[in-house]
């Protein structure tokens, strides 16, 4: 019996979908990975789904596979829109979750608690338009084309290096004053509030 199991469903491709309580996700994943007879040792993919219906919760979807038993299972966690969008990271179980969870964070704004390096991955670090795959994000982005071009042209070197990398290089001494001040303040992009529906 999977810990935190809420309900099961069958997808149109015949796979079993298991909905798990958010608080017990990590426990359920550890059970599936380590229990003999389950042996779901391979994490295929992590993604999220937001439905066009605003009332429906977001789903974080984990695709698991047992390489020995040649069986697949799909685990889902539902996140209410009104609630905090956060789940536990499964990085401790599968290192493959590293970039996959970063991508979900980048595209949906879902936080993975306990992830060692949760940064944007496909968008740049100072990207300030929000989370592209959310339904309230317009197809062409939040800012005007002119503003997007202006921001792209004005990117400073800290837009190209993370703070971590600049600290490796001990580059602080070589930076112009204003840039150093901005780094010290830990300046990042500001996420604007979604427009009122």
């Amino acid at each position: 019996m999977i810990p935190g199991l809420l309900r099961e469903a069958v997808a149109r491709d015949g796979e079993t979908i298991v909905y798990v309580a958010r608080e017990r996700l990590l426990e359920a994943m550890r059970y599936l990975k380590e229990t003999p007879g389950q042996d779901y040792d391979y994490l295929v993919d992590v993604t999220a789904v937001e439905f066009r219906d605003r009332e429906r919760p977001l789903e974080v979807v984990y695709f698991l596979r047992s390489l020995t038993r040649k069986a697949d299972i799909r685990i889902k966690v539902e996140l209410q829109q009104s609630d905090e969008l956060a789940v536990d990271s499964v990085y401790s179980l599968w290192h493959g979750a590293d970039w996959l969870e970063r991508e979900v964070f980048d595209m949906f704004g879902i936080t993975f608690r306990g992830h060692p390096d949760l940064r944007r991955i496909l968008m740049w670090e100072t990207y300030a338009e929000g989370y592209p795959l959310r339904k309230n994000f317009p197809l062409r982005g939040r800012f005007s084309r002119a503003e997007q071009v202006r921001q792209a042209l004005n990117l400073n070197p800290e837009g190209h290096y993370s703070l971590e990398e600049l600290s490796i290089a001990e580059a602080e001494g070589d930076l112009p004053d204003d840039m150093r001040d901005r780094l010290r303040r830990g300046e990042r992009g500001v996420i604007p509030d979604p427009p009122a529906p």
Partner: protein
Amino acid sequence: MSKRTVELELATPGVDAAGRPARVPLTAAAEPDLGGEHLLLNMGPQHPATHGVLRLVVELDGETVVRCIPHLGYLHSGFEKLGEYRHYNQIIPLTDRTDYLSPMSNNVGLALAAEKLMGIEITPRCTVLRVIACEMSRIISHMVWLGTTSIDLGAFTPFLWAFQERERIYDLQEMWTGARLTTSLTRVGGLMADIPDQFVGKLREFTRTFPKTLGEIDRVLTRNAVWAGRTQGVGTLSAAEAINHSLSGPMLRASGVPYDVRKDKPYLGYETYDFDVVVGEHGDVFDRYLVRLEECYQSTRILEQALDRLPDGPINVDDPRVILPSKTQAMSDMEAMIFHFKQVMEGVKAPVGEAYVGIENPKGELGNYLVSDGTAKPVRWRIRPPSFINLSALPKMAEGHLLSDLVAINASVDIVMGEVDR
């Protein structure tokens, strides 16, 4: 004096005071102490050895990689977001542009997922033609990999041979679809076109002569001391690590895990073909090379079997709601015209639900995950990008190797940035 400056006492061959020739070894007065100071090196996004617009920020201790931090997204095009605004058939041109080194098998992957979602059974001829498309893609993708990797490691000749073979497949692709790169071969429920008349003959000619080139590449590279020296024991991943990092495709098999979607979760009737799953032993760059080289032989075998069994019959399912009627029909038959109009304007509606289909792409397992809310456009289209996930193991593989090995390791992942960034 900056601490980076090292004073060297240079001694060159010359004559001593008595006029006799003397050879004095070239020595440094002090061993340069570089151990304490790390260097941050930016490689890419315009570096030829990063295979596209990948950018690596590398922390170096001397020439040894201490840490490697990849930066992605320079080619991010938002395909998944675009897909939410398109009909299922309109998504197919987007898949060409993800892994643009094997466009035809991407097309097949998306069509299979959409058909699974809609519950469509494709025709026998279409199934075999799709197998041919997938294996042709595998060969061209592996040829690009082989050519570019050998260039990265300093061997120019195999590059020319590999690209010549790839060109022959591209000619076939052009014959079939009219495009070399943006093939858009499949449609939901079938294909955009049947193969032309001379296609089978030309493909048979290819499968007959291609192994000869593979043999030549094998002879030039496999026992080449430089090649072996630069690839063996470099970027090693054990089977457990490869599984833990969710690697797939040749990367996973080179580490000794015999998982191949074609065998273990068959699609397109792959279980009925006779071919071997190629498995490596050491999980290093050399084994990845061997696996990909042998996979080309296996793909040739599959192509031959597919050509032998290619049945006659229609390529599209007989369902006017899914497949567009021919132009002649649409212009002369009222009912056909209505179907044509509805498909173009409204698209093909998929029932509520979700479907995931993983196929064995040249780079690894390409997954297409479609979620539908009953309309003609998906709520969510997710590509499981094999080279993105394989690349995520790069920092782990590169640690402790030399900078020049980082180039070999990065090449061995076989990334294509269109798919990594999507």
